[in-house]
């Protein structure tokens, strides 16, 4: 069951939200100011809520596990999140850049998933899309504020976009599960989202007085479980409690 395309497909969706939720959660109490701190943690909460819906569905499917076990007890190579979401909170420009580059994709994806032939996925998508619309508004606005801000904010925002750009292409490379599920009408065809994505992102970057990176170098691997070095540290943090005290309960 756990190796089935459906299971692996949903895992990919869920892991993106989990890992991005985790990264945003790290900002709790550390945001540049109160409003952005609260905004980032609220977005994190939305994402983790969505993750829970996916994991609960998976746990029911598998029958022999729980949402917590799926979240906390896997090994690094079993996570199917894209590389973009595991990138660290280097500075606020990176937080916003990572968020925006993901939000545009996330919204497109959910629009497609609303039509999924899988009832549960369609339901989760319909619920999540309302929240993700707010996320994209937030991140898009901040890209513009920082890009079209001071010389320093523009420099830092550009640095972040330049640094994260290489992770965008992976979003549109379908792995085995994604290809299979798209054919069955369960999943979205991510390859078809690519053109609109770059068009929309470029338009916002232009408006934000930021240069659209020209580099054709892109990194992949997350969807196949081959993660960046950051993932190890992230999981060590995230999984510590559950591994130290297995089956712990509040």
């Amino acid at each position: 069951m756990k190796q089935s395309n459906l299971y692996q497909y949903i895992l990919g969706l869920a892991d993106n939200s989990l890992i991005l939720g985790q990264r945003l959660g790290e900002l709790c109490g550390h945001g540049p100011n109160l409003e952005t701190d609260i905004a980032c943690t609220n977005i994190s909460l939305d994402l983790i809520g969505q993750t829970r819906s996916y994991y609960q569905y998976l746990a029911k499917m598998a029958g022999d596990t729980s949402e917590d076990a799926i979240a906390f007890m896997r090994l690094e190579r079993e996570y199917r999140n894209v590389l973009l979401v595991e990138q660290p909170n280097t500075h606020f420009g990176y937080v916003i850049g990572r968020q925006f580059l993901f939000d545009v994709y996330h919204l497109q994806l959910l629009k497609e998933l609303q039509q999924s032939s899988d009832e549960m996925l369609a339901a989760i998508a319909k619920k999540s899309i309302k929240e993700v619309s707010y996320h994209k508004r937030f991140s898009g606005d901040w890209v513009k504020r920082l890009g079209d801000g001071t010389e320093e904010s523009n420099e830092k925002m550009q640095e972040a976009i330049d640094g994260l750009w290489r992770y965008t292409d992976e979003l549109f490379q379908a792995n085995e599960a994604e290809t299979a599920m798209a054919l069955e009408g369960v999943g979205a065809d991510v390859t078809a989202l690519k053109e609109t994505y770059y068009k929309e992102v470029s338009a916002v970057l232009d408006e934000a007085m930021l240069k659209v990176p020209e580099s054709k170098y892109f990194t992949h691997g997350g969807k196949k479980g081959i993660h960046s070095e950051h993932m190890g540290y992230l999981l060590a943090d995230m999984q510590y409690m559950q591994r130290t005290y297995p089956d712990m309960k509040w």
Partner: protein
Amino acid sequence: MTITSQPNIDNALLPILEQVSDPEIPVLTVLDLGVIREAIEVNGVVQIKLTPTYSGCPAMDVISDDLAAAFLAVGKEAVVELILTPAWSTDWISEAGKRKMEAYGIAAPLEETADKEALLGNKKIVKCTNCGSTNTHLVSQFGSTACKALFKCDDCLEPFDYFKCLK
């Protein structure tokens, strides 16, 4: 059976349901919020279908526990199931609920177009819950909880929460 946007609640269960409030906004009962989509008694067990306001709303776990406890207090077993569809909308908040919210200090959700104009277009239409002025501005699209945005009144200078329209 399919859950429609009209909740299916057994009238006999209403008095108990009315006792359970939102832990974050205690003036609102679960009925005011419109999160109970079904409450019927089947073979002596109360079956409740609950739908979350926001995906990550932590209050839902507390509400589930509170519902079970409220029914246990009158000697009944209650089973709460979380359902995702149809997705909750602020349209399901009762009129009484909206008035209670305002009295409590949370501006009630405007209808969709107005909500977007207030949150995204900076239109001054949200009324201050303290002095009633519309001379207010958005501080952040995210407030003390996922469902609320933070506003400030430029007349009386008090900050207040605004319950975001979700459709």
